[in-house]
């Protein structure tokens, strides 16, 4: 590859090599967990204890500290999954395929959390668990897209082929992402508009905003932890006949 300096090319080749990646995730894991727990503790303390009750919603608004970061993650992870899937599709990089497919269960988890906590927030505030509002419906479709990705991957035995199929599904589903994001502006229904991403003047007080951002950052680290754990088992089971896996097992490194 011309234009790209040699050390950088070497770095990417090393990164994309399965044994190197496996060892790296093992070394990174404790650090990721520590950072996640610190951010989580700070976010929960700020959100559940320090922040004042809302002047209209009382203490029920505290669901925001998991609802909004989960909803953000559900979109963020979908985009990561589609991009990684696309990279795997074009350049056939095994690791990109693995990142794509390992992201799906984590994204599905966050989508589920966003829907359930939204429902638990909607009941006392809107008086209903569910409405077929544009935001809620498009988020539900996102959950089905994630489940479709997981199911499709599991249904095809050859994992290289499965990755291709999954990447195409994920890329087609990207059309849903802007629909979810703009749904509250395009259709004026029950779900409220954005509070935080009005960057010029967020309509939320700093004492409420800071814990929210801490939780969002904590969830980013959680995603890395959970996705990498999926990637590790995925990598092992795909490479079960490779020398590095066999020698690791015969050395008794049952980690």
């Amino acid at each position, binding site marked *: 590859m011309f234009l790209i300096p040699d050390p950088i090319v070497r770095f990417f080749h090393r990164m994309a090599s399965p044994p190197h990646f496996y060892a790296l995730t093992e070394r990174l894991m404790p650090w990721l967990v520590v950072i996640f727990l610190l951010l989580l503790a700070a976010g929960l303390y700020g959100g559940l204890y320090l922040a004042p009750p809302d002047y209209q919603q009382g203490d029920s608004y*505290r*669901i925001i500290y998991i609802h909004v970061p989960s909803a953000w993650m559900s979109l963020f992870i979908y985009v990561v999954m589609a991009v990684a899937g696309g990279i795997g599709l074009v350049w056939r990089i095994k690791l990109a395929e693995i990142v794509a497919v390992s992201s799906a269960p984590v994204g599905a988890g966050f989508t589920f959390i966003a829907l359930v906590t939204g429902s638990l927030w909607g009941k006392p505030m809107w008086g209903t668990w569910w409405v077929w509002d544009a935001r809620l419906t498009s988020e539900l479709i996102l959950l089905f897209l994630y489940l479709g990705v997981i199911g499709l991957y599991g249904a095809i035995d050859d994992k290289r082929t499965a990755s291709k199929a999954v990447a195409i599904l994920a890329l087609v589903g990207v059309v849903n992402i802007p629909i979810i994001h703009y749904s509250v502006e395009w259709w004026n229904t029950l779900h409220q508009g954005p509070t935080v991403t009005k960057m010029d003047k967020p309509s939320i007080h700093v004492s409420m905003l800071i814990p929210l951002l801490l939780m969002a950052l904590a969830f980013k680290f959680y995603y890395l932890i*959970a996705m990498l754990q999926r990637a590790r*088992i995925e990598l092992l089971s795909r490479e079960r006949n490779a020398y590095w896996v066999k020698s690791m097992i015969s050395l008794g490194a*049952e980690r």
Partner: protein
Amino acid sequence: MNWQEFFAMGGYAFYVWTSYAVTFIVLLANVIIPIVRRKQFLRQQALKQKRQGTL
């Protein structure tokens, strides 16, 4: 603010704490499942190697 008041969440205890509990359970499951699956896989492969080695 005392603990009782804290857990009461201004009368919204059920909605707030159920939300947090569901979140906690889903997040924990999504980390534990792959770890358990990896341990199982490594155990199975080690057994398989042992069998093939003695054959």
